[in-house]
C-alpha cells in the first residue's frame, strides 16, 4: 500500500466515469488503489486518517497508522465520514437570498462581488466556527483582523467548559493505559468524550490481565452507557448526585439507594491504588465530583501541560454575549462555518430571532441545515475529504489534510473562500495573508512556502513526504489558544427525589447532531439499547410502573414551556430518578435521513439536567430497534470467566481442519492445500463500539434498509454486535461480534439447491451471488443467523453510489449475502505476494473489521501456518471456545471468553 501525495490538488476529474482519466497521473494505475493521508474531522478527537481512492473516487476511510492518537484505527463515525463526502443533500453551488426571501443559486463571481462590496465597507464581523486549529484558525483570525474584528467564536455544542473549570482552564491529556484504578464520572470516554479511539486503545491495555490482576474501572453516572457497560462496578445515580457520592467516598456517609459495600469498595480501591485516575464528565456535577476525588487522591496521569484542542471551545457565556450583541444590532455580518446554533442551542429560537438583526449572514457549511437556511449567502465549502488543511489535537501533534479526490460539486475550500472574499473587498491577499490561496497559506504555516514558479514537479520532497505521512507528530509543541474558562455553577441543594431529571447525553454516532445525515450511523444500532433511526427516552422500571408506562409508549416531556414527544424505553440501565434521552437527532432540516428522524431535546436543556414533567400519551410509537431477545436463556453463547478463576480451557475446540474430524463425524475432513483462513475474537477487548460493523458497511457495499426495513427484521449488516443483558451478573451487558463463522462443516452449504453456498479451497464459506436463486434455505440452516437476504433492490441515492467498492459485487434483489472474510482483500494480498514471488506473511491479510477495531479484538490469519498469531491463540489460549460448538459446525471464528469480576453461571 503506497501512500500518495496529491500534489497541488487533484483536479476535478471525471469521477463519475468508469475510466476517469484521459491523461492520468503517473502514480495512478486503473484498478489499483491510491491512498491519501488526511485527518478525520467527524469530531474534535483528531484521529489521523488514510483514504482509499480508486479510479478517482474515494471508497473507504481507515486510520492513519502513523498518527499517535488512533494508531491506524477509526471509530464508527470515522468510518462513516465518506458518507459525509457523498451526502446526497450537499449544497451544490453558492446560493443567495433574493428580495422575496427565496434562496436561489448563484455563481462564485457574483457572490464574491457582492460580499466584497459589503466587506469593503468594514462591517462589524463576528465569526462563528466549529473547532478549527492551526492553519485555518490562523487564517480566520487574520481575515477577521483584516476587517478590524477579533470576534472569533469556536462554537462546539459540547464545550467541555466544566471540565476546563476544574482543570485550570484546559482540557488535559489522560493516560488511561497506565492506570490501575479508573473512576469515570459520566465521562463516556469510549464513545464521545474527548478522544474515544485513543482512550479505547488505552483502555484495552489497562484491562489486560497480568498475574491475575488488572486495572479496575468504576463508572458513576445516571445511565449505563456503552462505556459503563465495560466497567467492573457501576453506580447509577440520578443526575446531580455525583458530588454527594464523591463526598461519601471520602467520608463514608451513606447515600440512599447505593450499597454501602460498593462505596467501601471504591474508597478502598482508590486509597490503595498506586496510579488512580478520575475522569470528569461533561456536566458540572460530574466535573465537581471528579475534582473532589482528585483533591483526595491526586492523579499523575492527568497532564494539564498537554491540553487537548477542545480547550479552545468557547464557553456558554461567550455565546450569550454574541447573541445579545446580535440582538442589539452590534453585529453587521455573521460568518458561520460548521456551526448549527439554530439546532443545538437551548435558546435556539432566540438565536434565530437575533439573526434577523444581523444584516449579512453568511454560511460556509456544505449541507443545508437549520442555521444555513436562515443565511443570506451560502458559500458551500468543500467537505474535509476534499480539502487542504490541518488539525492539531494535542500540542506538537498536527494532522495534515489533503484533498482525497476532486471536488464533487461547485464548492471551494473554506480558506479559499475567505481569501477570495478578502480580495474582492480590495485586500491584497499576498500582502495581508502572505498567500494567494489557502494552499499557499498552509504551505507557509508548515514552513514550506510556495516559491514563485513552482509547479507540481518541483515540490520539495520534505513537503511531499509530510503530506504522504499525513502530519507531524512530536511530543511537545505549542498549546492551543486558551479560551474562556467556564465557571462551575453553585452546587444545587439536595435534589428533590420526586422529580424526574432529564439526562441528555451525546449519541455515540451523532455526537451533537453533526452525524445525523450519515445513513450508516442511523442504521447501525446504538450499542446498549440497540435503537436505530430515532430517539428514545430511557426510564427505569420502578419509575415506569408508577406512571403505567411500558416500552414504546409515547411520552410527553415538558420543561420551560417546551414539550416534546418521545417513545419510552423501559430498562434498568438508567437511574430511577432520571430520564435519559440522546441528543443529536430531531433535525428539521439537515438532509433526507436526518430530517424528521427522532426528536431534538436540546431546546429543553436550559439547565444541564432540568427537572421535567413526564406524561404518558395515549398513542404509542415503536422505538425503532433491532428486535430479538436480549437474554441468553442459559445457552452459554457469550461465555465469561472470572478474574479469580484459573484459566483452563473448558470446551473442546473442534478445529476447522481435517484434524477436527473424528468419531462423531460421518465424513472425513477435507484437505486445504495452501491456507485455511480463521479469525479469533477476543470478547474481553470488545467494548461494543460498532466500528467494525461500520467498516464492513463501507468495505462491502452493504445496503441500508431504513426504519421500516429494521422493523421487519431485514437489517443487512454482515457483522453485528449482539448484546445480552442480565442485571444479576457482575458484567450485566455482554457484547459479542457475530459474523459468518466460515464453518468447516457449514450447515448452510449442503442445502443450497444450486451450489450458491459452497466451500472454498481456502476454508471460506462462499456465497456466489450470481448463482443464488433465493430459496433462503441457507439462512434457515445457519444457526448463527448471519446470512442476510436482499428483499428489495436497495438504492444508493446519488452521489452515495460513488462510494461503492469496485472490488465487491453490488447484490440485486433475491440474492443472499454474508460476510466473506473480505475475500477481496485476501485475493489482493495473495496476488501481491504472487507478483513479488513470495509467500504471504502473517498479518498481511487484514479484513475491514480487523483493520479498524480500536481495541484489537480481532486477529485474522492462516490456521495452516503453525506460527501465525491465530494458530497460536487457537492452540494455546485457555479462554478459547466456539459458539454453539455442540452443533459440530466446526466454526473458523474462535472466541476468547470475556474476563469479568465475579464468576457468572
Amino acid at each position, binding site marked *: 500500500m503506497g501512500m500518495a501525495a496529491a500534489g497541488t490538488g487533484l483536479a476535478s476529474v471525471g469521477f463519475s466515469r468508469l475510466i476517469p482519466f484521459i491523461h492520468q497521473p503517473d502514480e495512478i494505475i486503473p484498478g489499483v488503489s491510491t491512498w491519501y493521508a488526511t485527518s478525520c474531522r467527524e469530531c474534535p478527537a483528531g484521529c489521523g486518517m488514510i483514504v482509499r481512492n480508486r479510479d478517482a473516487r474515494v471508497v473507504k476511510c481507515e486510520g492513519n497508522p502513523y498518527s499517535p492518537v488512533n494508531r491506524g484505527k477509526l471509530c464508527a463515525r470515522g468510518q462513516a465520514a465518506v458518507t459525509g463526502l457523498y451526502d446526497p443533500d450537499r449544497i451544490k453551488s453558492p446560493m443567495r437570498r433574493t428580495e422575496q426571501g427565496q434562496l436561489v443559486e448563484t455563481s462564485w463571481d457574483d457572490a464574491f462581488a457582492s460580499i466584497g462590496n459589503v466587506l469593503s465597507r468594514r462591517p462589524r464581523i463576528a465569526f462563528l466556527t466549529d473547532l478549527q486549529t492551526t492553519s485555518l484558525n490562523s487564517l480566520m483570525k487574520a481575515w477577521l483582523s483584516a476587517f478590524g474584528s477579533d470576534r472569533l467564536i469556536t462554537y462546539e455544542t459540547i464545550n467541555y467548559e466544566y471540565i476546563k473549570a476544574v482543570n485550570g482552564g484546559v482540557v488535559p491529556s489522560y493516560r488511561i493505559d497506565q492506570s490501575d484504578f479508573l473512576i469515570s464520572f459520566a465521562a463516556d470516554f469510549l464513545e464521545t468524550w474527548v478522544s474515544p479511539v485513543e482512550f479505547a486503545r488505552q483502555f484495552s491495555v489497562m484491562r489486560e490481565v497480568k498475574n491475575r490482576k488488572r486495572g479496575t474501572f468504576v463508572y458513576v453516572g445516571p445511565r449505563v452507557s456503552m462505556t459503563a457497560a465495560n466497567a467492573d462496578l457501576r453506580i447509577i445515580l440520578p443526575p446531580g448526585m455525583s458530588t454527594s457520592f464523591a463526598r461519601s467516598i471520602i467520608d463514608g456517609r451513606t447515600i440512599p439507594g447505593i450499597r454501602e459495600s460498593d462505596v467501601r469498595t471504591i474508597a478502598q480501591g482508590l486509597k490503595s491504588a498506586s496510579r488512580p485516575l478520575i475522569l470528569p464528565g461533561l456536566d458540572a456535577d460530574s466535573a465537581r465530583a471528579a475534582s473532589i476525588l482528585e483533591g483526595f487522591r491526586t492523579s499523575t496521569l492527568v497532564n494539564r501541560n498537554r491540553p487537548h484542542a477542545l480547550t479552545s471551545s468557547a464557553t456558554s457565556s461567550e455565546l450569550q454575549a454574541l447573541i445579545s450583541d446580535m440582538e442589539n444590532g452590534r453585529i453587521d455580518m455573521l460568518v458561520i462555518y460548521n456551526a448549527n446554533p439554530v439546532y443545538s442551542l437551548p435558546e435556539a429560537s432566540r438565536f434565530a430571532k437575533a439573526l434577523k438583526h444581523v444584516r449579512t449572514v453568511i454560511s460556509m457549511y456544505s449541507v443545508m441545515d437549520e442555521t444555513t437556511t436562515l443565511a443570506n449567502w451560502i458559500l458551500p465549502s468543500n467537505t474535509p475529504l476534499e480539502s487542504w488543511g490541518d488539525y492539531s489535537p494535542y500540542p506538537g501533534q498536527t494532522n495534515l489534510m489533503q484533498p482525497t479526490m476532486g471536488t464533487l460539486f461547485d464548492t471551494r475550500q473554506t480558506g479559499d473562500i475567505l481569501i477570495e472574499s478578502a480580495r474582492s473587498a480590495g485586500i491584497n491577499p499576498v500582502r495581508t495573508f502572505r498567500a494567494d490561496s489557502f494552499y499557499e497559506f498552509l504551505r507557509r504555516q508548515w514552513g514550506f512556502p510556495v516559491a514563485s514558479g513552482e509547479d507540481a514537479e518541483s515540490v520539495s520532497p520534505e513537503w511531499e513526504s509530510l503530506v504522504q505521512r499525513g502530519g507531524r507528530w512530536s511530543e511537545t509543541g505549542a498549546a492551543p489558544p486558551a479560551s474562556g474558562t467556564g465557571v462551575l455553577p453553585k452546587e444545587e441543594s439536595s435534589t428533590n427525589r420526586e422529580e424526574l431529571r432529564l439526562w441528555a447525553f451525546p449519541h455515540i454516532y451523532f455526537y451533537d447532531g453533526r452525524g445525523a445525515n450519515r445513513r450508516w450511523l442511523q442504521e447501525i444500532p446504538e450499542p446498549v439499547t440497540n435503537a436505530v433511526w430515532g430517539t428514545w427516552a430511557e426510564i427505569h422500571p420502578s419509575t415506569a410502573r408508577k406512571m403505567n408506562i411500558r416500552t414504546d409508549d409515547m411520552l410527553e416531556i415538558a420543561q420551560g414551556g417546551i414539550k416534546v414527544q418521545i417513545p419510552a424505553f423501559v430498562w434498568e440501565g438508567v437511574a430511577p430518578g432520571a430520564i435519559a434521552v440522546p441528543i443529536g437527532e430531531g433535525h428539521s432540516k439537515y438532509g433526507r435521513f436526518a430530517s424528521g428522524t427522532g426528536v431534538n431535546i436540546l431546546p429543553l436543556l436550559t439547565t444541564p439536567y432540568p427537572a421535567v414533567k413526564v406524561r404518558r400519551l395515549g398513542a404509542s410509537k415503536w422505538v425503532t430497534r*433491532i*428486535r*430479538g*431477545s*436480549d*437474554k*441468553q*436463556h*442459559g*445457552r452459554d*453463547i457469550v461465555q465469561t470467566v472470572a478474574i479469580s478463576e484459573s484459566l483452563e480451557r473448558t470446551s473442546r475446540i473442534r478445529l476447522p481442519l481435517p484434524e477436527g474430524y473424528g468419531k462423531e463425524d460421518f465424513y472425513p475432513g477435507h484437505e486445504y492445500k495452501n491456507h485455511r483462513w480463521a479469525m479469533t475474537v477476543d470478547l474481553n477487548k470488545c467494548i461494543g463500539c460498532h466500528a467494525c460493523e461500520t467498516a464492513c458497511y463501507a468495505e462491502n457495499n452493504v445496503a441500508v434498509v431504513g426504519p421500516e*426495513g429494521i422493523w*421487519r*427484521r*431485514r437489517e443487512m449488516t454482515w457483522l*453485528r454486535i*449482539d*448484546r*445480552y443483558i442480565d442485571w444479576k451478573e457482575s458484567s450485566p451487558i455482554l457484547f459479542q461480534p*457475530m459474523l459468518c463463522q466460515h464453518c468447516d462443516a457449514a*450447515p448452510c452449504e*449442503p*442445502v*443450497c*439447491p*444450486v*451450489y450458491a453456498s459452497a466451500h472454498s479451497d481456502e476454508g471460506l464459506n462462499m456465497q456466489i451471488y450470481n*448463482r*443464488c*436463486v*433465493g*430459496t*433462503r*434455505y441457507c*439462512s*434457515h*440452516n445457519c*444457526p*448463527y*443467523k448471519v*446470512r*442476510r*437476504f*436482499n*428483499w*428489495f*433492490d436497495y438504492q444508493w441515492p446519488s452521489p452515495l453510489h460513488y462510494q461503492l467498492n469496485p472490488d465487491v459485487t453490488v447484490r*440485486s*434483489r*433475491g*440474492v*443472499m449475502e454474508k460476510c466473506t472474510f473480505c475475500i477481496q482483500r485476501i485475493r489482493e494480498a495473495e496476488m501481491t505476494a504472487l507478483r513479488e514471488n513470495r509467500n504471504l506473511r502473517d498479518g498481511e491479510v487484514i479484513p475491514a473489521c480487523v483493520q479498524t477495531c480500536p481495541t484489537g479484538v480481532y486477529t485474522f490469519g492462516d490456521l495452516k501456518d503453525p506460527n501465525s498469531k491465530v494458530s497460536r491463540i487457537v492452540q494455546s489460549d485457555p479462554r478459547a471456545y466456539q459458539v*454453539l460448538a455442540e*452443533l459440530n459446525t466446526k466454526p473458523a471464528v474462535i472466541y476468547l471468553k470475556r474476563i469479568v469480576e465475579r464468576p457468572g453461571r
Partner: protein
Amino acid sequence: MTNQALRDIDDQVLGTLGRPSIRYMLVLGLFALLMLIGVIAYGFQYALGMGVTGLSVPVAWGVYITNFVWWIGIAHSGTLISAILYLFRTKWRNGINRAAEAMTIFAIMTAGLFPLIHLGRVWVFYWLLPYPNWRHLWPNFKSPLVWDVVAVSTYFIVSLLFFYLGMIPDLATVRDNTRDGRRRRLYTLLALGWTGRYEQWRHYARSYLALAALATPLVISVHSVVSWDFAMSLIRGWHTTIFAPYFVAGAIHSGLAMVITLLIPLRKILRLERILMPYYFEQMALLMILTGLIVGYSYGVETFMSWYSADIFERQFWMYRAFGSWAYSPLFWIMIFLNVAVPMTFFVKKLRTNLKYLLIAAILVNIGMWIERFVIIVVSLSHDYLPTSWGDYAPRFVEVWVTGFSFGLFFFLFLSFVKLFPCIPMSELKEQAIEEQRAIQERV
C-alpha cells in the same frame, strides 16, 4: 344376464358431462376471479421483490411454503386411493379413484407453483432442474430442495401417466357417446384409438398394475422427501427423524379430508347419489381415524423427545411453541384439537355415516392440517439458537391473495375437469358390476 347395470353406470356418468348450468359457470367464474386477483398481487412481488411479503430473517419461509406442503400433502391421498387400494383390491375405491386422482394432479400442479413463487429470483428457477448446459452447471443433488424437485416432478409425471392410462377406456366411452364435433375430436385424440380389443386390455392391465406398483412407493417417498426439506436442517422443531412418517400420515390425513370435501358436494351437484355410495365415505372416515391417530402419536413423540433429549434448545423451543407465544401457542393447541380430536369422533357410527357432519369435519381437518404446516414452519424458525435472532412472522396481503390464487386455481381446474372428462371410472365400475353378477351366478 343383462347389461342394464352397465348401461346405468354409463348413463349416470355421461350425464355429468352435459352443459354446465349458469350457477356452475358463476362459481367457475368466481374461482377465475380469485385467480386473477392472485396474479395481480403476485405481480407486485415480481416487480418489487420478496420484501412485499411478511418474511424476514429468521422466518424466511412462511405462507408460501405452508401452502406448498399442504397442497402436496393433499395430493398423496389420491394416489393412495388409486394405487395402494388397487393393489389391496379394495372395492370401495372403484367409484372415487378418478376424482381422487384428478385431485392429486391438480394439487400437485398448484403445489408446484409455490417453490417458484417463493424464490427470490424466480426468473432463473430453471437452474434447479438438471439440464445439460454449456457452462456445465448442475444442481446440488445433496440438497433436500433438489430432492424435492426430483420427487415432485416424478410424482407429477407418474400420477399424470397413471391417471391418463386409467382414463383411456372411459375416454373411448365418452368418444363413442359424443356427437359434438370439437369435443368428439378431443376425445378421439385422447382415446388413442381404443377399441377394447383383448390385446389392448391385456397390455393395459399389465401397464396399469405396474404403474400402481410403482406409484405406491411414491406415496411414502414424496412426502418424506418434502418433510426432509425440514428434517435435514438443524432447526429445533424440524430436525427430528419422526418427520417422514409424520408428514406422510398427515398428508394422507389431509388428502382424505379433501377428497371428502370435494366429493360430498359433487355427489349432490352431479347427481351421482347412486354411484358414490355413503359407504365409501364411511370407509374414508375410518381411514382418517387411523391417520389421525398416527398424527397424534407424532405430536406425542415430539413432546416426549423434547423432554427426553435434555437439550436446552429443544426443551425451550417446545415450551415456547406450547405456551410461550401469545400468537402461535393458541394455533398449536387448535391444531391438535382439529387434527386429532375431530377425527376421533368418527368412532361414533352415527357421525361417520352422516354426510353433512363428515363434510364439516373434513373441512375442519383441512384447516387444522394447514395450521399444522404453518406452526411447524413458522414457529420453529422464529425461535432458534441465538436469542438475538428470534423474530416472528405474519402474512401480508400479497401472500394472502396468492394463497387465494392457489385455491382458485385448484377448484377451477377440478370443476372444469369434472365437466369435461368422466370423473367416475366407468370401466372399473362396470368390471365390478360384472364380477358381482358372476359371483351371484356361481352361487346359484
